[in-house]
Each structure stands twice: as structure tokens, then as C-alpha cells.
């Protein structure tokens, strides 16, 4: 944990008083029972559901996830803490810890390294938390804290090579400029094991969709850790630390953890995303005309490779193999579709993905206190007339 200084405190006070995304809240009493408040939309993000305005947390409606690359307007935002915008010209990042050559790098330094562009699906570890029973602790995400972007940047391995990693290094931690609102609250720092840090797809990205990464999505520079839960891909990077152990902080040891399969008294820090699929069309509650309907959606598998998607149109009694279509990128979602001859009546459609690790989406998920790992088969009910 970084030590606190009066300067840091004063900087936080300043940020909170002036940050444009840090909208303050005036409480107004309401009559009657608890209601879900509806905070105002965020400019450029009007399509998204505001789960929290401070820190900012926005998710898409699944029916707005209609394209392989998610438009910025429909791309979710997950902030543990907000951050003030960082001027790219002023930005720098330290590489420190278990290295022989600690370095400070600026954007120009990164641009001298070989560039990498790849399509990556990012999903919040808590996506689907709202479906846990009883209610799990945290932002109540439904289906839409997921999206796919084209990121450009450099390999983290190349950056670590500049700093000359020591043999003792086993984990690499990322820290962004976002800081908690009080000195006692834990800084948002997460680490990944060395094998993942050195993997050729793990990157420090400075472009999204061919343009500088927007502030809300972590620019000027963010980590992109494909296949891992979204929280590994720390935004607004200012520090990369090589460590001998997994980072010992709240966001590794307490939050972003789930009970171990072999001993549920102990927890592990989440790494890979689950195997998962969503139905984009038809929408929940849709009224359809009888005849041909193309059911379709997305499927992804984190560290696994997607091997297939099965579709049921009778509530899970029978399953048919869906067709995988469109781009196929190792760490991005894949589109699936199924030609359904819809007869009059009420129907429940389901999609179920499988992957190369032998995983299949389950029909249920054991409750876990923090509401992670929700990849239960997505079902939509429709009426056909």
C-alpha cells in the first residue's frame, strides 16, 4: 500500500471537488418504500444503464450489443474509483520492483516498441451478479458488463524486458492513477502471474478502435489482459511492479475472489473468465410472428477456446448445435446463430456454450458472497403469434 502524504490528501480533495464525473449527490426524501434511483445519463453513454454515478459504473442492455466491435456508446464502464483525466503529454509510468533497471516510460517510449493490435472481449468479473440468490454484495450487473474492442499497444513482455526482470519475479502488479476517497480505503491494485504477464497477447494499450483510449476506458494507457476478468486490465496506468508473490492487497485477497472448488473455506483470486454466452436476439419478452427467426448472440470462454454453442427453443428439453459465424479471434467473443422455425405459442430460448477446457455453462451456480462467476445458461421467454 502506498504511504499517504498531505499532498496526496490535498490532491484527492481537489479531484473530488472538481472532477466532472464525480457528480455530487443531494439527498431528497421520498415517500413510501425504497425505489431504485435513476441517476442522469452520462454524455456519450446515454444508451447505458447507470448502476452508480460515483464511482461511475455503466452497463449495456444486451439487445444493444449488436456488433462484433462494441461502439464506445455501448461499451460498459466499471470504476472501482474514479480518476481525473490524464493529459497524454504529461503521462508517464514507472516499472519497478523485482527489476534490475527501474525505468520511467512516456508515451513516446512505448511507441518505439513493436505495436500489437488485437480484438479483445472484456467482461467485468461481477457481470450477472444481479441474478444470484440471495443478493450478492456489489454492483448489481445484469448481462451488459461485457463488450469487445480493438486495442492497439505494446506487449507487456517488451516493456518488462526494458526494465530487466529479475529471476525472482513471479507476479506483475498494475496500479492506476485512481485512488480511494479516503486514505484508509485500499488502493485499486491487481496483479497477474508471470506466465500471463509475459504471454504475447498481454499488452499495455494506448488505442481503442484506432483512436487514443477515451478517459472512461482507461486512457492514456491501460493494461489489457485478454481472457482474464476485466479487473486485471487496470486503467490509467501509472505503475507496474514486478513482485515475488501475488500482490497482497484487498483487491487480490478479498475482493475479486471466489471459494475454491476443493475447499470452500478458502478463496482464490479470480483469473480466467468463465465459458459464457448471451442471447441478443430475440429479446426477453419479444412478441414474434410465426415463421423463420434467426436467434443469435455472443459466446466467449476466457482462457478456454470456445468449442461450440447449443441452442434450445423448448426450455432446455432438447438442444441443437448453433452455427458459429463472423470473426474468430482467440480472446474475443464469437457470434453464434440458429435458424428457428417459430410456431405459435410461448417459448423459452436458451444458449449454452462449451470450451476446450471441458467447461459447459451450468444450469445453476452456487451462491458466493461476492457474486462472481455468473455464467448460468441465458434464457429468454418469447411469445409467437
Amino acid at each position, binding site marked *: 500500500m502506498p504511504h499517504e502524504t498531505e499532498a496526496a*490528501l490535498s490532491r*484527492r*480533495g481537489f479531484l*473530488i*471537488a472538481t472532477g466532472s464525473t464525480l*457528480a*455530487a*449527490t*443531494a*439527498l*431528497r*426524501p*421520498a*415517500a*413510501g*418504500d*425504497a*425505489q*431504485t*434511483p*435513476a*441517476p*442522469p445519463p452520462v454524455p456519450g453513454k446515454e444508451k447505458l444503464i*447507470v*448502476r*452508480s*454515478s*460515483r*464511482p461511475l459504473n455503466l452497463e449495456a442492455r444486451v439487445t444493444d450489443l449488436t456488433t462484433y466491435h462494441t461502439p464506445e456508446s455501448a461499451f460498459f464502464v466499471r470504476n472501482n474509483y474514479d480518476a481525473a483525466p490524464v493529459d497524454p503529454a504529461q503521462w508517464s509510468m514507472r516499472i519497478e520492483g523485482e527489476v534490475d533497471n527501474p525505468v520511467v516510460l512516456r508515451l513516446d517510449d512505448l511507441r518505439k516498441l513493436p505495436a500489437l493490435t488485437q480484438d479483445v472481449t472484456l467482461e467485468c468479473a461481477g457481470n450477472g451478479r444481479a441474478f444470484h*440468490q*440471495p*443478493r450478492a*454484495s456489489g*454492483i*448489481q450487473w445484469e448481462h451488459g458488463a461485457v463488450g469487445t474492442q480493438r486495442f492497439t499497444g505494446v506487449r507487456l513482455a517488451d516493456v518488462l524486458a526494458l526494465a530487466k526482470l529479475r529471476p525472482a519475479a513471479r507476479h506483475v502488479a498494475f496500479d492506476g492513477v485512481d485512488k*480511494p*476517497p*479516503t*486514505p*484508509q*480505503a485500499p488502493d485499486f491494485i491487481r496483479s497477474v502471474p508471470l506466465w500471463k504477464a509475459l504471454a504475447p497477447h498481454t499488452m499495455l494499450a494506448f488505442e481503442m478502435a484506432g483512436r487514443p483510449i477515451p478517459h472512461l476506458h482507461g486512457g492514456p494507457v491501460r493494461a489489457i489482459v485478454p481472457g482474464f476478468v476485466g479487473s486485471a486490465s487496470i486503467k490509467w496506468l501509472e505503475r507496474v511492479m514486478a513482485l515475488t508473490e501475488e500482490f497482497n492487497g484487498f483487491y487480490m485477497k478479498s475482493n475479486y475472489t471466489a471459494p475454491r472448488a476443493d475447499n470452500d473455506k478458502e478463496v482464490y483470486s479470480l483469473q480466467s473468465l468463465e465459458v459464457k454466452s448471451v442471447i441478443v436476439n430475440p429479446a426477453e419478452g419479444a412478441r414474434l410472428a410465426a415463421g423463420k427467426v434467426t436467434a443469435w448472440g455472443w459466446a466467449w470462454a476466457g482462457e478456454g477456446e470456445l468449442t461450440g454453442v447449443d441452442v434450445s427453443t423448448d426450455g432446455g428439453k432438447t438442444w441443437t448445435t448453433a452455427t458459429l459465424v463472423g470473426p474468430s479471434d482467440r480472446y474475443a467473443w464469437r457470434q453464434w446463430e440458429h435458424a428457428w422455425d417459430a410456431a405459435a405459442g410461448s417459448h423459452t430460448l436458451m444458449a449454452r456454450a462449451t470450451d476446450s477446457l471441458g467447461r459447459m455453462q451450468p444450469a445453476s451456480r452456487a451462491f458466493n*458472497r461476492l457474486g462472481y462467476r455468473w455464467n448460468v445458461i441465458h434464457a429468454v421467454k418469447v411469445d409467437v403469434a
Partner: protein
Amino acid sequence: MWRSLALAAALGTAVAAHAQQEVEVPKTPGWELIMRCVICHSVEIAVQQRFGPQGWSETLDRMIKYGAPIPPEDKAQLMAYLLRHYRDPAGR
């Protein structure tokens, strides 16, 4: 401790001076204590949670550890308020 209270007071001023958004909470005894929560985060973070007594108590204890200015006598009242409106009967 003094530092955290001073910080909270400074932030409270910022909140009051920059109020831009209104949300509704039920006006039953203890509702004003929600202002202690919104010093650091918007009210939606709190009111989308549903816990039982243990869950709310642990959550408030964690927030107090992080510097939320909630002395013991106010914690009890805030607990009662949260359990009245934001309780999951099946939750801890």
C-alpha cells in the same frame, strides 16, 4: 482519526457546494445518515445492496474502517434504516 474527520468535513463541503443530482430515499427515521455514505460514493451503491443484519453490519464496519464518519450510536440507527428498506430476507 482527526485527519480522516477533517477530510470527511472537507469532502462534505464539496458535496454540498457541487450538488448536481438528486435521488430519492425513503424518509423514515435515520434517513439523514445516508449522507455519511455519499461523502465517498453515490447513493445507488448503497441502495442496490440487500443484506440481512450480519451483511449490513459487516459492510458498515468495513466502511467505518475506511473512514466513514459513523460513530457506534449512529451505526445502530443506520443499520435499522438499511434493514427496514434494503433487506434480503434470505440474506446474511
